[in-house]
C-alpha cells in the first residue's frame, strides 16, 4: 500500500465523491479519486472475484429457498457483495467480525458452513455457529448494538496486548441509533483497533437515506469523533478491500479506529416480507443493476487476461456446488429437542427452570402416549 496510513487526517472531511480504484467499465482509475490508494494485485482481485461470485450464488439460492418456505426469512445482500467481501476479506483469521442480519455472505466468506449460517433464519435456534471457532459474533438484529460489542472486544484484546482487530458492519439506518454514536465515541476515546463498515445501501427497509441523515456523507461523521473516515464506492471491491485493509493494518499497529462508508445498493427487498415497489422506482433499481460490483471486476480481470474461460468455469462449478450443498442441507429438517429450551439460559441449574423442563417433558411424553395409544 503506497498510502502512509500512520498519519491519516482526523480533522479533514472525506471526499464527497466516493473513492474508487476501478470505474464502472472496469478500468483502473487514476488521479485524486483514488485517495492515494493503489489497486490490489490481480491475484488478490481474482480471489475477491471468486468470493463474490460464490457469495452471490449462495444469496440467490437462499432467497429461492425462502420463497419456497424453507426459511422463515432471509435478508439478501444481492448487490452489496463488494462492500461485504472487500471488507471481510481484509481480516486475518485471528480478527473478530461482528455482523448484522444482512451479512450472511460475509459469514460464508469467513468459512462458516451454509447450514450453520442458516440455522437462525430457518428458525431452529438463534445462532448456529461457534462464535469462538470462527471469531465471528452472532448476527445482530437490534441495530448498532453489536458495534459496541466489537469495541469492547477490541479493547479487551488491546489490554491483553493481543494484536487483534474487530470489524463491524452497520447499515445507513443504524447510524441514526444511539449505540452507533456510543460505539464510534468509545472506540475513538479508547483508541480501540476497530473498523466500522457503514454499508450505505440507500434504504432502511423503506426509509431513504435523505430521511435518515442530513450529513453530506455518512463518512463525514468520523470527523466528529476524531477518527479517519472514508467515503468509498461500495460497488468497487478493489477500493473496499484496499481501504479496509489499510484501516485493519493501522488498527493492528495501534493507530485506532476507522469509519468506512461503502456506497452501494440493495437490489432485493429488505426481506422476503416487504414490497420494494412501494418505495423505489424500477428505473432506480435498473440504474444500480448497471453498476453491478461483480461485472465491474469481471471486465477488469478479463482485460488483464487472468479470468480465462477455464478459470470462470471452475468458479462457476464451485458456486454451483455450494448452492447444491445449501439446497441439500436445507431440505433436511433439523431434529430439535424441545427440552433444550431450558438448557442454555444459565450456567448454573435453576430450580424453577428444572420444574418447567419437567412439565414440558411430561407434556411431550403425554403427547407421545396419546399418539401411540391412538395407533
Amino acid at each position, binding site marked *: 500500500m503506497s498510502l502512509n496510513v500512520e498519519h491519516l487526517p482526523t480533522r479533514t472531511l472525506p471526499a464527497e465523491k466516493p473513492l474508487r480504484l476501478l470505474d464502472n467499465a472496469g478500468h483502473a482509475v487514476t488521479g485524486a479519486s483514488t485517495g492515494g490508494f493503489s489497486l490490489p494485485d490481480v491475484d488478490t482481485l481474482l480471489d475477491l472475484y471468486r468470493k463474490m461470485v460464490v457469495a452471490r450464488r449462495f444469496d440467490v439460492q437462499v432467497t429461492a429457498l425462502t420463497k419456497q418456505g424453507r426459511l422463515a426469512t432471509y435478508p439478501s445482500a444481492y448487490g452489496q457483495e463488494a462492500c461485504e467481501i472487500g471488507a471481510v476479506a481484509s481480516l486475518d483469521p485471528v480478527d473478530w467480525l461482528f455482523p448484522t442480519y444482512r451479512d450472511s455472505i460475509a459469514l460464508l466468506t469467513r468459512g462458516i458452513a451454509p447450514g450453520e449460517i442458516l440455522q437462525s433464519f430457518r428458525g431452529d435456534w438463534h445462532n448456529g455457529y461457534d462464535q469462538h471457532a470462527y471469531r465471528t459474533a452472532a448476527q445482530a438484529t*437490534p441495530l448498532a448494538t453489536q458495534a459496541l*460489542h466489537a469495541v*469492547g472486544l477490541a479493547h479487551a484484546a488491546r489490554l491483553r496486548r493481543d494484536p487483534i482487530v474487530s470489524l463491524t458492519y452497520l447499515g445507513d439506518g443504524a447510524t441514526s441509533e444511539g449505540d452507533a454514536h456510543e460505539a464510534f465515541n468509545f472506540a475513538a476515546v479508547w483508541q480501540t483497533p476497530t473498523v466500522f463498515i457503514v454499508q450505505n445501501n440507500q434504504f432502511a427497509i423503506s426509509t431513504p437515506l435523505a430521511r435518515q441523515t442530513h450529513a453530506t456523507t455518512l463518512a463525514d461523521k468520523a470527523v466528529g469523533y476524531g477518527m479517519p473516515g472514508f467515503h468509498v464506492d461500495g460497488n468497487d471491491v478493489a477500493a473496499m478491500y484496499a481501504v479496509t485493509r489499510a484501516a485493519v493494518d493501522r488498527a493492528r499497529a495501534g493507530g485506532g479506529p476507522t469509519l468506512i462508508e461503502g456506497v452501494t445498493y440493495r437490489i432485493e427487498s429488505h426481506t422476503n416480507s416487504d414490497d420494494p415497489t412501494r418505495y423505489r422506482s424500477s428505473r432506480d433499481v435498473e440504474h444500480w443493476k448497471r453498476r453491478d460490483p461483480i461485472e465491474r471486476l469481471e471486465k477488469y480481470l478479463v482485460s488483464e487476461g487472468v479470468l480465462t474461460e477455464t478459470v470462470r468455469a471452475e468458479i462457476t462449478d464451485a458456486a454451483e456446488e455450494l448452492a447444491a450443498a445449501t439446497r441439500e442441507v436445507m431440505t433436511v429438517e433439523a431434529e430439535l429437542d424441545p427440552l433444550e429450551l431450558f438448557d*442454555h439460559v444459565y450456567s*448454573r441449574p435453576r430450580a424453577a427452570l428444572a420444574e418447567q423442563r419437567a412439565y414440558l417433558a411430561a407434556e411431550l411424553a403425554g403427547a407421545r402416549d396419546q399418539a401411540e395409544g391412538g395407533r
Partner: protein
Amino acid sequence: MNATTTEAPRTEASPTQLTMAGALNAALRDAMAADDRVVVYGEDVGPLGGVFRVTDGLQAEFGDERIWDSPLAESGIIGTAVGMAMYGMRPVVEMQFDAFSYPAFEQMVSHVAKMRNRTKGRVTLPMVVRIPCAGAIGGVEHHSDSSETYWASTPGLTVVMPSNPADAYSMLREAIASDDPVVFMEPKSRYWAKAPLALPVTTTPMDRAVVVREGTDVTLLAYGPTVRTALEAAEAAVDEGLSIEVVDLRSLSPFDDETVGASVRKTSRAAVIHEAAQFGGYGAEVAARVTERNFHHLAAPVLRIAGFDIPYPSPKLEEHHLPTADRVLAALDTWEWDA
C-alpha cells in the same frame, strides 16, 4: 443493624466496623487482586472513586488499565462489557444511579441476558452490572428509582440485592466469580450502614434467602432497603404480642422458593415489602408464588406493602411514599386474626 447472616467469618481477625460501601470496595479490591481478568469501569469510578466512593483508591492501586473512567454513556458501558466478557475478561461496570441504567436497557435485555442461550452455552458473559438503587437518600428526580422488576423479569439475568455489609462483600465476590451476568443492586440508603466485620467473609450463597429473624406468627419478605423496615416492624410488634419472622430474599432472580416456603408454612401468613411501585411489581410475583405453592397452609392472603403507584417523588415528599414499619403493622391489622 448487625450483620444478619448466621455464618461466622472465615478468618480469626477481630471484626472492625465497616460500612456497606466499604465492604463493596474491599470486595472489588480482593477480586481484582485475585484475578487479573477482573476490570472495573463506569462513570467517575477512577480518581473520584465513584459518586458513592465504592471504587475509592482502586485506580491508584491497580492502574488505569484495570479501572478507568468511561465516557458518559450507559449503553456504551454495557455494550462494551459484552465484548470484553466475550474476550475472556470479567468486567464489573457501574451504572452510577438506578434510573441512569435505562439507556442500557436494550443491551441488557437483548444481549446480556440472551447471549448464553442464543449461542447454546458457547458464549457466556461473566460480567457484573452494579446498580446503586432505591431511595431515601434525598436524591432529586431520577436518582431513587427501584428498577429491579425490569431486570428480574428478564430470563437470563441473575439479580441480587444485599442488605448489609457482610452480604455485600460476599455476594459481590460471588457475583464476580459467576460465569453468568449478574445485576448487582446496591440499596443506596444502606451504603453507610455499619457492621462489625472481619474480611474476607463468606456468607450464604447469593441465590439463597436467609431468615434474619425468627418468628412464629407472620413472615415478612423483604430485600435490600426494606429488610431494615421489616426488622423495625418485627421489633415493634413484640409489644403487641406478635412474633414476626423476617426473611431477607437477597436473590430476586432466582427466587428461593424453598426458604420462603418453609417460613410461610411455619407462620401461615406472609407479606412482602418493597419500595418499588406495587402494580405489576416484584411483590406481585412473590405473592403469587407464595400463594400458588402454599395456599392450603395460608391463613390469610399474602399482602404487599409497597411504594405508591406513582413516579418516585421529590426528596421532601419521599417519606410519604416509602413503606415504613407503621405501614407494615397497619397492613397486618387488615387480616382477620381470629378466623
